[in-house]
């Protein structure tokens, strides 16, 4: 370690920290503006499976979400732990999917209607039976573009 000689005249002045709050506030505003709070309350527990070949969902406005998984803790008393479907903010039955899709489709502009993508956020411990049923409903509603939500990992 080299010793720094203190020479009264040459000492560098202290860096002013007065602008630090401004910088931090700027960062704060940036994060406040760009991030979105989760808009739907999760009523089912979803732990997404992992995959390596995933691609990003491009336009979020064109995506509608279907959640499938075991009800979360506070709903388990009433509903048990069997996998259930959540659309928007409530538990729904299979038959409601068609209405849900047509409602989502109506919310889009005319030009974007056939670009609607349905993201299936399914818990990894779910059995395929319910997923197959949902897929059949989506086919009936002709919402054919789907995305199986998965977390990106480099390899297993």
């Amino acid at each position, binding site marked *: 370690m080299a010793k720094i000689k203190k020479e009264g005249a040459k000492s560098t002045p202290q860096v002013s920290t007065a602008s630090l709050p401004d910088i931090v506030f700027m960062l704060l505003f940036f994060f406040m503006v760009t991030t979105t709070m989760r808009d739907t309350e999760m009523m089912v527990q979803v732990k997404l*499976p992992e995959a390596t070949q995933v691609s990003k969902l491009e336009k979020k406005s064109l995506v509608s979400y279907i959640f499938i998984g075991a009800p979360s803790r506070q709903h388990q008393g009433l509903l048990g732990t069997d996998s259930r479907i959540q659309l928007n903010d409530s538990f729904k039955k299979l038959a409601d999917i068609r209405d849900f899709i047509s409602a989502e489709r109506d919310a889009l502009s005319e030009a974007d209607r056939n670009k609607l993508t349905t993201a299936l956020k399914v818990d990894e411990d779910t059995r395929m039976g319910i997923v197959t049923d949902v897929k059949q409903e989506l086919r009936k509603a002709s919402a054919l573009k789907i995305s199986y939500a998965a977390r990106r990992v480099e390899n297993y």
Partner: protein
Amino acid sequence: MARSTPEINGSSLADIAFLLLIFFLVTTTMNVDTGLQRLLPPMPEEKSDVEQDVKQRNILTVLVSKSDRLSVGGEPVDVSMLREKTREFLTNPNNDIHLPEKQVVDIEYLGSMEVGKGVISLQNDRGTSYKMYMVVQNELIAAYDELRDELSRAKFGKKYEILTEDEQKAIQKVYPLRISEAEPKSIGGRK
């Protein structure tokens, strides 16, 4: 006025701002949704068995059983072998008569290419776990992606992802994504 109020020390302002910043950093999620994107087949208008036209050699049946066991083309296979099996099926490098037929097609940018007629038929049980299903889907797509990438490197000297849209389409014609997810079988009276 003897007493003047002392100036408020502003040095703690930074700490307060940091605290807020960290709060927002932790609570907000900048989640980018990722997933395996697929296209479902349209619902058939009437009961018609189009699939019977496909010859046996052109179908690779990938079956995931109730207990998450995998069988490819009738024989039990470990998941780690699935990618290799799929690649072999799609390319048919030795022109095996049990593997898919090939057809020479003229494709823009690429010239005459041999295109296999293979179709992968993915079947699962109602009791298959979603996790296993996703692993299988992922491996199938990985096989396609690898083949497309290799072709792209051989023909254009670039990765598949950075090709232009037309070039990607040309490559997709050589290896079209043909994964048929079977109609759910009704077992035990469920429809």
